[in-house]
């Protein structure tokens, strides 16, 4: 596991991710981008700060790539999650899944984002017009 395989502090280079998965045998490429929205829970969002337990987040994303790759052996998967301060409209995550056939590419891409949102130790703090809040903590 490289320390910077799946996490980045820079704008995500979607074209590079795509190029890293596409093979001549692929007929389908599914890309998912998570974007910073301008609203959440009725509030106007100005920006989001993403923070991670970095080595564990790298490890957990790696496990998910492996697990989803085993379920869809024809699919090649790449993923980058951005950390730091993001503005509305910027991508926090991009997942690229290429496959000979589209059903697997879509399914793998969907499973990737669903699992990443469940277990990877990354947190976001929203800055809204009402102040700053860590999302997910009910304290």
């Amino acid at each position, binding site marked *: 596991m490289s320390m910077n395989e799946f996490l980045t502090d820079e704008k995500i280079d979607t074209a590079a991710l795509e190029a890293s998965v596409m093979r001549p045998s692929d007929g389908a490429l599914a890309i998912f981008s*998570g974007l910073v929205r301008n609203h959440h829970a009725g509030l106007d969002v100005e920006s989001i700060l*993403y*923070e*991670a*337990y970095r*080595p*564990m*987040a790298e*490890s957990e994303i790696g496990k998910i790539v492996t697990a989803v790759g085993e379920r869809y052996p024809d699919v090649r998967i790449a993923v980058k*999650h951005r950390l730091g301060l993001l503005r509305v409209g910027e991508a*926090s*995550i991009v997942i690229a899944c290429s496959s000979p056939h589209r059903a697997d590419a879509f399914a793998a891409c969907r499973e990737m*984002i669903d699992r*990443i*949102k*469940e*277990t*990877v*130790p*990354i*947190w*976001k*703090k929203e800055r809204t017009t009402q102040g700053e809040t*860590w*999302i*997910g*903590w*009910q*304290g």
Partner: protein
Amino acid sequence: MTSNTQETQEQMIRVRLLLFAVLRDIAGSGETDLVLRIGSTAGDVWQLLRERYPELEGYGAPPMTAINMEYVPPDTLLREGDELAFIPPVSGG
């Protein structure tokens, strides 16, 4: 969070505690070195945190717990040199 200096070093273990996001903000620090009795669990450390930080009182059960970057149940025994992290509900993606 502190060692009991009455006990010998042999009965104690050193553990590094990592706190993230809202937990770090509450504790005021993201990394703390703990000296704990042998036999301490991750859940025991969570109880120490609850006693020290009133903001955590409502949380009897710890959030997700990781030792050495692997999720574990809260009753997992800590060992010398472990890296312990409490993982608030994640919100990545």
